[in-house]
């Protein structure tokens, strides 16, 4: 009897692995690429035929004319091949020091007074290190800086941020958010920038 069950177990692992690890993904591939080809390929965003990013993967921005994402612990920052957070506990001195420094930098780059309240997402690192979003409050504080750097009215930039703000899904799921990469792409589209789109390599 043991022999018979042993044989079934081996055959079971083989056939059922083929069914679930091979037939199932293949079926899914066929359906997925037929129905949602762009999604299946990673929702890549292109501009002028050049792939500039993915809708869902955060990208680093440091120049004043772009909105800045949250700080990131993925590799050297927004490394798409090394996702992860800091894993610092709330009492970890490194975390408290980092937040203090990040808050000072944030206030400095946005011309805010030293006691200005900063939204916490602007000074904490996400779990993935690839968070594509910032909170609407964070975006609002960056509007004056971006407008000045681009020679645009704050009103125009604010309107753009409002356009790019996603509400709660189905009205109650998740938090309102602004996609930094998509907002910056829209900014670039607002007025043909004299900056080179792609830095020469």
């Amino acid at each position: 009897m043991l022999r018979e069950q042993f044989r079934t177990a081996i055959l079971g692992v083989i056939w059922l692995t083929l069914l679930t690890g091979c037939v199932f993904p293949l079926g899914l591939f066929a359906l997925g690429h037929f129905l949602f080809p762009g999604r299946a390929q990673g929702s890549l965003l292109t501009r002028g035929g050049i792939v500039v990013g993915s809708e869902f993967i955060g990208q680093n921005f440091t120049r004043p004319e772009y909105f800045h994402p949250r700080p990131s612990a993925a590799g050297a920052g927004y490394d798409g091949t090394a996702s992860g957070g800091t894993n610092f506990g709330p009492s970890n001195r490194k975390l408290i020091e980092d937040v203090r420094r990040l808050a000072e930098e944030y206030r400095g780059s946005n011309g805010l007074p030293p006691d200005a309240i900063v939204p916490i997402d602007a000074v904490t690192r996400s779990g993935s290190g690839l968070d594509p979003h910032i909170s609407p409050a964070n975006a609002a504080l960056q509007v004056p800086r971006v407008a000045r750097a681009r020679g645009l009215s704050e009103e125009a930039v604010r309107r753009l941020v409002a356009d790019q703000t996603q509400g709660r899904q189905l009205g109650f799921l998740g938090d309102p958010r602004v996609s930094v990469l998509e907002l910056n792409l829209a900014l670039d589209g607002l007025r043909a920038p004299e900056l080179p789109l792609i830095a020469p390599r």
Partner: protein
Amino acid sequence: MRWLEYFVFLALVVGLAQPAGLYLAEVFERKPTFLDPVLRPVEFLLYRWLGVRSGQEMSARTYTLCFLLFSAIGTGGLFLLLLVQRWLPGGPADRYLTTPMTLDLAANTAISFATTTTWQAYGGETTLRYLTQLFGLVSQNFLAGAAGLAVGIAFIRGLARERSATVGNFWVDLIRALLWVLLPLSLVGSMILIWQGVPLNLVPYTEVHALEGGVQTIAQGPVAALEFIKNLGTNGGGFFNANGAHPFENPTPLVNFLGLLAIAVLPASLTITFGHMTGRPRAGWVLLAVMVVLFVGGLALCDFAESATPPQLAGLHISGGNMEGKEVRFGIGDSVLAAVVTSNTATGSYNSMHDSYRPLGVLVPLVNMLLGEVVFGGLGTGLYSMLMIALVAVFLGGLMVGRTPEYLGKKITGAETRLAVLYALLTTKVVLVLTGLALATAAGRAGLVTNMGTRGFTEVLFAYSSSMANNGQTMAGLNANTLFYNTTTAVAMLIGRFGLAALALALAGRFAAQRRWPTNVGTLPSDSATFGVLVLGTIVLVGALSFLPALALGPIAEALQH
């Protein structure tokens, strides 16, 4: 708005429990279902190829043996695949795979996935090839999940039958769990995930030209094939290092919500399956009610902790809840909900970094795992965890009224009580002994590379709780990819899966053989609110007696510091 989402979630879980539970009963009682025209031929074919005599039932002993054999061979196969993966074609270029697949990492990973723990001592995008993820991990997510469901059903049969020498046929239950439950739901669920933005491709990591210049390399892969079944099978191991926090694994709040439903609905509905198959539907509802009470309690505490700005940041003029390690799209609400759901249900697919949670925030997932994941619990395993503790409650109740305790007309004699108590004690022993061992040795303490003090202690306790509960989530500040942790967590995972399942099946066999005694005035009714309160009290009491000292050294001490 957070509370609306919590409420809708819980309402859906409870609301879907009835139809899903009755469907599961139909599937495993081999009654006709609407999927039969498509699936019966496949089922018949698989029985023939595997040599399954589907009409022949097994004793609890044989059932356990088949479960062990199937799991052992699955583990061995995955272990070999991991060792040869470097020669597999396709996927990321070698230079991105920076984590070496050592023998101990391969063994740990194989055991981890074959036990539905899916504890990951590695980061997916820096370790695994696409074909390993598909053949190895996706398949084990299905197989181990289905095997757990089968064992849960066998346990129910033990309580439902009388004077029976058998508890079902493992292969039939396994194949029906795959064909009628996991595969169809995964197909539909995965398609929704792709529509929402989860990628599914085999292209190498993609280089994109960042707007500010330079190149960003984006890890890709067949993510959607893993993503739904990892939740549905209550496995939880991620495709990427950041697991459910990674935007490709969990791009939108809707995906997150569906994933959490996929985790909780089937385990919750098994209470209804149990009530239906034993002919005591109200007994099932009582268990579900106990689960809901514990769920809401944990959720409220975790939400309270995480929605406040950490006091350590006071004076820095910062506003908002604790967002370190959390994603903006999820905010506090989705993160807390995921932490509570995944820790209750043997699913490690956290979407925020628990190591950065506040002490009371991390206490909740830790306690959920230490209580043995009785709230919904792992697929199949959760139900017998709950019933085991219910039996301890029955025993205590019997002591109080001074007569032989019984549950659903089954007498709980010395032998049954021994099994139930052994079950309740096993988690305590394994978790506390291994935690002590880790803290007493240099090899164990070497894992504390990120946080020290009480938080470091909690990381170690969390690691073994997670392994023993076959959960797989982690406080990732602990460096667990060492020979010491790969070995010791594997031991906990094996005992947590097979030790507990063997005890549960042994008990099922004893119950199946018993006759059903008629109820009389002295019987403690198992379908009353009183019984629910007794079970609730027993869970809290056993949990507190077992773990309060350890918790006092970890999260509780840390909470008192600030």
